[in-house]
């Protein structure tokens, strides 16, 4: 629904098509001080009516933080900016303390703070479609979006937490999945015997010989369990860890195996994602 909105004014976002290629809005987030502080950097490049509104303080960079576990949202508006005339670049940096031990989802935008009318000219940063037009923008409209920033990707290694249980028999491994783990936490817990732990600590590069093939197959087995758990969830949308959800979306995109479907087969999906490296295994050490 969100992408289908038709507004009477142009909004700067990826692939919107209204702005010239030289006009871009990006945001970046970095965690500092044991992850207790966030530095958000907004950058608007190129000449545009949005740049003019920012320079005249009629628009602001803003960021929303979402702490998923508590459904807590916080909002921070930047009152300051730097303007580099030569590079035609407006930037702002926000330093924000994090109230939780996990990272929030971060949604940056540029919003206008008063009702404004814009008459398009060659400095408006818009494509020829808009030339000669004029439009009104209601106060508090979002003028530019950037993608939601998250600190956990769908990459398997970023989702795994491996720990050793010395009492486990050699070669034993226990996997648990916490689909609703908080952002910044690792939702897949692997508890394993010392020998498996030592092996996994060596990392799992692309299998090239019997050793690396063995390590890779341990992760295949873990994924098989994870996929079966995810497929059996009654509610496959609410509260799911963003990294895990991203991984499951990528699984569908890359292998065609739909983890939400009734005929989903976890072993087939996991071996398609990380196939048993039989050739590498037969190469020996």
């Amino acid at each position, binding site marked *: *629904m*969100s992408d289908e*909105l038709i*507004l009477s004014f142009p*909004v700067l976002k990826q692939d919107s098509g209204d702005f010239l290629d030289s006009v871009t809005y990006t945001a970046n987030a970095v965690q500092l001080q044991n992850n207790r502080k966030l530095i958000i950097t907004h950058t608007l490049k190129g000449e545009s009516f949005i740049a003019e509104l920012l320079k005249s303080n009629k628009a*602001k960079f*803003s960021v*929303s933080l*979402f702490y998923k*576990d*508590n*459904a*807590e*949202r*916080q*909002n921070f*508006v930047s009152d300051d900016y730097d303007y580099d005339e030569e590079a035609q670049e407006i930037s702002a940096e926000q330093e924000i303390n994090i*109230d*939780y*031990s996990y990272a929030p989802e971060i949604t940056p*935008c540029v*919003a206008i*703070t008063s009702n404004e009318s814009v008459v398009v000219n060659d400095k408006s940063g818009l494509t020829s479609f808009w030339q000669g037009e004029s439009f009104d923008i*209601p*106060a*508090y*409209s*979002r003028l530019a979006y950037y993608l939601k920033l998250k600190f956990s990707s769908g990459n398997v290694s970023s989702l795994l937490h491996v720990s050793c*249980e010395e009492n486990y028999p050699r070669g034993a491994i226990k996997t*648990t999945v*916490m689909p*609703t*783990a908080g952002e910044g936490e690792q939702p897949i*817990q692997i*508890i394993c015997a010392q020998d498996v732990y030592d092996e996994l600590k060596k990392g799992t590069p692309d299998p090239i010989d019997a050793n690396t093939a063995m390590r890779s197959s341990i992760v295949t087995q873990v994924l098989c369990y994870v996929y079966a758990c995810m497929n059996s969830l009654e*509610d496959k*949308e*609410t*509260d799911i860890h963003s990294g895990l959800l991203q991984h499951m979306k990528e699984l569908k995109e890359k292998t065609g195996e739909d983890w939400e479907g009734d005929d989903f087969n976890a072993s087939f999906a996991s071996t398609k994602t990380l196939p048993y490296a039989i050739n590498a295994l037969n190469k020996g050490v």
Partner: protein
Amino acid sequence: MTIYKEINNSVWDSFGKSLLLKKGSEKQVDFLQSCRDGKDAFLQYLDKNIFSEKDAMTGGKGVFFDHKFTESEFRFPPIDTQQIIWDVFQGVPRQSMGSCGFWGSVVIDMIKHDCITPDYLASNVNGVNETGIYMLDNAINLDDSKKTDDCVRRILRSMGNSAPRGKRIIFNDFYLGRAYWRWNWSNKMSNEISLSFEEILNTLDEKGYVKVSEKMHSQKSYISQTNTFGGLLLFLNKNPSELVKNIEKIIDNLSYLSIWKAIEIQSSDLNQVEIENIADNI
């Protein structure tokens, strides 16, 4: 930030899920029987099935009640009990208050210190006399797998375990959590808008809180923005009947509006006007 002790959330969730694997299973009946047999049996069961796991508990400060609850008071805390709950938890960081493992640890400590008895957890006192003992006896003896499963789920919910409904349970279903979070919102918002703590508590009555909170912890968490929620409370204070009638539609429309309009930076007063417009057009 003070660290409070809590059950490892992964262990806590796995414990609940293992109990829900099969309706009417022997495992479910054993769990219910331990609950029926009283404090020592129940704590032994939990020791064996949760705390024998490595790192099942993370260390930290404990939270204790100096108050013995009655069964109905635990199930539906009246206003003076809500005050007790608020006083006990007011200083605890929000992160802990949003953790199922933290609440699980609190409830187990309440049993250990005789603030409640385990059978309270099964209570369905809801205008009818379905006490915990009555519910447990029915669930154990009637050979009805659905009743057994329902009772296990009710106990897990009463302990803040995420297995039956996910993490949102501690904001909606779990009695102590619901009382705390309702007061927390009233306290926070009374510092943001022109309504007093008591006015917000009244506006956000038990039923109203559940409706709003369900939305907050689903896909409509957008309303938890201070200015957005402020506007909603101002509107509901003026139009209390809307809480029952149209609140869900209003929240849906508000979320839709937030896609293009940064209502999170618009003042609560302006958001009230925005919400009035939405309500007029429903």
